[in-house]
């Protein structure tokens, strides 16, 4: 029954889209078929794969750095309380700020290249990865720590066998959210930077009024993001099999 409803909603969406394409709006709204055709054409011409490759490069660089820096930083913040309390303030400020506002600054200081996109991706995702790792350490059940101490566990053993496994679900949640934020950062960076990547493709298509191409690229980007997140979710489910 549920499946039927979901399928129905997808169908309804496609029909709505098709209808919208026929209604004269302020610009030529491409129909689903036209979008699909444009998508195929973009893939064939190599433009989409090339743009994707560049975008993914920035993403991996920036997101990878965010995880490699953010998780250990969050762990340190959680274990060394004074550091945590102070760093938490900076983290909160970074999260409150609409990170897009930092893009012009990054462009000025780093330039317009893959590195600057990566830096922006990093800025978008690192704070959340760090915050979640920090939260994970702080949320460890005190009872488990007490139990381990009753068995005379050393500080190192406490960290490796109690704190870390306990924090893992939250760390993963942070990584997952960080990835979705990384995509957000990537898109914003490329829309504003423009020289390359999927963002450039989108902006170029729009300015040349090739709306079917623009739609196709936007759709592709959203699908890419969804696929990446789903993949991460799968990995997480396997590693955290013990959860209820």
């Amino acid at each position, binding site marked *: 029954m*549920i499946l039927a*409803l*979901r399928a*129905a*909603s997808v169908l309804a*969406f496609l029909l709505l889209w098709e209808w919208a394409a026929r209604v004269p*709006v*302020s*610009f030529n709204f491409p129909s689903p078929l036209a979008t699909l055709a444009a998508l195929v054409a973009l893939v064939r011409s190599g433009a989409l794969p090339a743009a994707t490759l560049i975008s993914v490069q920035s993403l991996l660089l920036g997101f990878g750095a965010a995880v490699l820096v953010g998780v250990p930083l969050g762990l340190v913040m959680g274990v060394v309380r004074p550091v945590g*309390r*102070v*760093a*938490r*303030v*900076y983290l*909160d*400020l970074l999260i*409150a*700020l*609409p*990170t*897009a*506002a*930092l*893009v*012009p*600054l990054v*462009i*000025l*200081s780093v330039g317009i290249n893959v590195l600057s996109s990566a830096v922006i991706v990093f800025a978008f995702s690192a704070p959340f990865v760090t915050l979640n790792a920090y939260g994970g350490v702080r949320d460890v059940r005190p009872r488990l720590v007490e139990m381990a101490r009753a068995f005379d566990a050393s500080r190192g053993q406490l960290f490796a066998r109690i704190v870390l496994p306990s924090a893992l679900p939250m760390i993963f949640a942070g990584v997952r*959210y960080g990835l*979705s934020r990384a*995509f*957000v950062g*990537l*898109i*914003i960076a490329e*829309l*504003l930077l423009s020289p390359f990547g999927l963002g450039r493709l*989108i*902006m170029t298509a*729009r300015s040349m009024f090739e*709306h079917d191409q*623009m*739609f196709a690229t*936007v759709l592709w*980007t*959203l699908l890419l*993001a*969804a696929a990446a*997140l789903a993949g991460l979710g799968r990995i997480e489910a396997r590693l955290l099999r013990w959860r209820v």
Partner: protein
Amino acid sequence: MTRGDRDESSFGLAGLAAVVVLVVVWEVAGRLDLSMFVPPISRVAAVWWGLLGDGTLGRAASSSLVSLAKGFVPAAVLGVALGLCMGRFAAVRHLLDGWVNTLMSAPLSALVPVLIALFGIRDTVVAAAVFTFSFFVIVVNTSTGVRGTERSLVEMARSFGGGEVALFRRIYLPSALPAIMLGVRLGAVQAIKGMVVGEMLISLVGFGERLIYYGNTFLITELYAVILSVLVLALVASQLAALVDRALVRWK
């Protein structure tokens, strides 16, 4: 994403100390002229004051805030309404939750060019971006809040002869209020991001336009001044939302 409420506010003694340290380090680093991209905070403050005086910040702020209101208010009203429906009626939920959940965590900035194509390069795009960014978070949180209503409360109300409207007013809505407020708070944060992104992409009005302009003209100190203004706006907005949250939920 329905992240849990942030725990204890960092604006305590540690918060104050951290900010003071930041200000001091920034000033020193700026004076030492380590990089042309790090002006001393005192100069930023001076420039900021100047921008306030000549009306630049005022113009940007008024445009931004108007777009914010034009986008956020409909998003909140429609978002709560849709969330209530989705929470209450399983059919609606199954129909829409796939979309809503996906769009909530999607990089919505990818949709801004679509909005530009739809509305043209005008300030309406900003309001539309604000709406898009905040709508889905509000829907999801509201829906979750309604779904979390205790069965026993509903049964109790029914047993006293409560009809659909009464149920909504007296059981579902109050019960879901904390979740709704959380959604509104998260939505407010997202709204500001949508505002900035929208403004930066059309590069026409508001704070976003100023960010692009100062970036293009290498006016770094001015750029910092605007970034700080945006940060202050974001903080004020989230604190405001928190205040409303506390007031409303205590009421009930």
